[in-house]
């Protein structure tokens, strides 16, 4: 029954997105044209990738508020690297970005794993620290478009079958994350650690280590996004992606990833991100001010939370039944 609900929920998101697209294209013909849809998807790629990282962490009953700061620091690092060593191959730069991101994620993960500090506290701290590090690294200076190489800036923009490489990157990451979550030991451990940490421990799963790896994945994806972000906007400065961590959380919540852990899917996170992407792209088209956009996004998030809460309550019945059963057991004691 629960699974059907999930299916229902993901289908529901698809339907809502389709309805939105139809409504917007009624107001502004051409909105639903393939080229524009590809454009929206491309525009949402970074959010999709970051939301998948966030999802991995949230599934283990944690949260990563430092993703955007990670993007800022790693983005600054690769931007400066490209400016200083224009001859460095792009593949190496991307590897370095993944590496820096992974290390920043591992730092979060180690605090959560080894010191048992709640992830919200750890990443709230590293959020400030990583952005501060970006400032220290650059001295507050910007890396501008003219300092970066053509390859660095243009590669993600190359079209392949009508979609830029940026969009294809997101598709590849979605596929990889789908495999990781559904076909690997780590993926299963992530669901189990968030779904019932005690049962996971008893089944021989190291919950702390699993959380650590979730943070590493999140950090690594943030590292990748750092390069994508800097090349897309052709600038690196301390404040890039400020507040974007909240968008990633919002995408997860809208996509039905339970903030209590253990429930959620790759498809959900992707659809959640796409939903935000469609709204963001559509509202200017129909002449709604950016401020109204923020209010609308906010309302949608709250609506999603209410929807989730209702779903949790439905699930809660099972938990209550379970609690009733264990209370019985206690009664017997």
């Amino acid at each position, binding site marked *: *029954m*629960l*699974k059907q609900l999930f299916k229902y929920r993901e289908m529901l998101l698809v339907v809502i997105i389709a309805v939105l697209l139809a409504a917007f294209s009624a107001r502004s013909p051409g909105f639903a044209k393939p080229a524009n849809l590809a454009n929206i998807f491309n525009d949402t790629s970074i959010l999709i990738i970051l939301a998948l990282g966030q999802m991995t962490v949230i599934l283990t009953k944690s949260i990563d508020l430092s993703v955007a700061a990670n993007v800022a620091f790693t983005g600054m690092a690769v931007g400066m690297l490209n400016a200083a060593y224009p001859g460095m191959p792009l593949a190496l730069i991307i590897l370095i970005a993944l590496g820096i991101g992974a290390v920043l994620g591992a730092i979060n993960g180690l605090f959560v794993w080894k010191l048992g500090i709640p992830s919200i506290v750890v990443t709230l701290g590293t959020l400030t620290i990583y952005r501060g590090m970006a400032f220290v690294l650059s001295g507050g200076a910007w890396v501008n478009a003219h300092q970066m190489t053509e390859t660095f800036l243009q590669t993600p923009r190359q079209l392949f079958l009508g979609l830029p490489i940026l969009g294809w990157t997101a598709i590849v990451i979605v596929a990889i994350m789908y495999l990781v979550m*559904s*076909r*690997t*030991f*780590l*993926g*299963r451990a992530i*669901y*189990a650690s968030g*779904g*019932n940490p*005690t*049962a*996971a*421990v*008893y*089944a*021989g*799963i*190291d919950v702390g280590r699993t959380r650590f790896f979730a943070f590493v994945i999140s950090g690594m994806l943030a590292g990748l996004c750092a390069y994508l972000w800097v090349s897309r906007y052709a600038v690196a400065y301390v404040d890039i992606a400020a507040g974007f961590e909240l968008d990633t959380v919002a995408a997860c919540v809208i996509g039905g990833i339970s903030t209590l852990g*253990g*429930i959620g899917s790759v498809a959900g996170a992707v659809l959640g991100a796409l939903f935000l992407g469609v709204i963001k792209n559509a509202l200017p088209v129909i002449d709604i001010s950016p401020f109204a956009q923020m209010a609308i996004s906010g309302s949608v998030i709250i609506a999603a939370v209410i929807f989730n809460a209702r779903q949790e309550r439905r*699930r809660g019945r*099972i*938990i209550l*039944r*379970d*609690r*009733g*059963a*264990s209370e*019985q*057991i*206690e*009664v*017997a*004691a």
Partner: protein
Amino acid sequence: MNQIALSEPLLDTPLLEMRGISKSFPGVKALNVVNIALYAGKVTALIGENGAGKSTLVKILTGIYQSDEGEIHVDGKPVAFNNAQDAIDFGVTAIHQETVLFDELSVAENIFLGHSPKTRLGFVNWKAVNARALALLHSLESNIDPRTRLKNLSIAQRHLVAIARALSVDARIVIMDEPTAALSRKEVDDLFQIVKRLKAQGKAILFISHKFDEVYEIADNFAVFRDGKAVGSGVIAGTGQDDIVRLMVGRSIEHAFPKVDIPLGETVLAIENYTHPTEFRDITFALRKGEIFGIYGLVGAGRSEICQSLFGVTRPSGGKLKLNGKEILIRSPGEAIKAGIVYVPEERGRHGAVLQLPIYQNISLPSLTRTSRSGFLRAAEEFALARKYAERFDLRAAAFSVPVGTLSGGNQQKVVIGKWLATQPKILILDEPTKGIDIGSKAAVHAFISELAAEGLSIIMVSSELPEILGMSDRVLVMREGLSAGIYERNHLSAETLVRAATGNA
């Protein structure tokens, strides 16, 4: 109904009387037409094994549960306890085993939390709060400063605060649910002084304890519960301990336990002087192939804690563990599973299943290292494993891909047991294997345990249920307060010996 009057009947009108109380939970009849009477100025001891129905009775008395049948009379008049407030209004108050108090609040705040005296404007009247707390503590002959923060008090002093809190609602009927469980002898003496003072003030006290010496020291009357029935009551004076023990355990035991005698093989697991910093000390035993080794004791005696340390959930601070003659160290449940030891925990709902995950993923969870290849899962193998163990347990579900949370309690249990057996263990630790299960399923579980032992598994079975321990075990380790109170061979087992060893009633 099932009363056996051991001594002369009690004549006065009781302050509170429960008549014909029954309470059922799905699959379990927790209380079955129970009568009990509490008298002003008297301490009534409620005695019974774990599972006898004592806690359910307390919850009905305090309005947390409502009885299915029966009446409660206060001062001879029928009353209804529809919620906790009703019970408080009729002067019923309970002091629980683990009292919920707040470390960072003052003693007075703890005592009056939720019912503080108010000023005319609706603000808390701190002067009154502190003054009344002081008066209450004085009436208990304590000189704790009501303004001290709770965290600065000793355990015994906290207990006193809990009692003061219970009395702050003008209690006439005081329930003490194993109040001495965490106390030292000196503190118990102090507590008994308080109980005597409460008696002198004319309060009726329901005193729940496992410890006979305490019951004989403090109680006037007693009531014995067994399997949800009140099987005897009377006046303590003139009733022998043996009579009470017999009432507690008295039932025919041998039938219905399909324990098959299996020739025991070599020693598989041996622990020597196993010690935990706080939970148990100097435990030594050896487990043989095909053996069912029972561990009996009261709740809190350290039984589950030993099993958890064998399974790597906690680590012992001393002692040796030998598996097949080789000394090894088990540092995590993962290592235990690899070594062939599995632990089926007591709270199968909380510790057992991941309710959101489908059946087959739950069954394969502890066996993933076996069913996966270089980190990649193989769904076909997982399904095969699930099918095998689901068939063995006659698990009923629409599909193996439905979440375990959608199954009935009984089927969830099957998933949990299946997932442990799927690891192909050598040693199976069962913590209260039949707790909360109805009688019919119990027999099936027992038959199954015997079958596993016959297949050569070694089984450690922790149980609070005497018939189960007596009927199933080859040998029984009795634990008392973290120490071994002896290991008894099957042919030397009797209910009385075990209860005496476990309660320290020589």
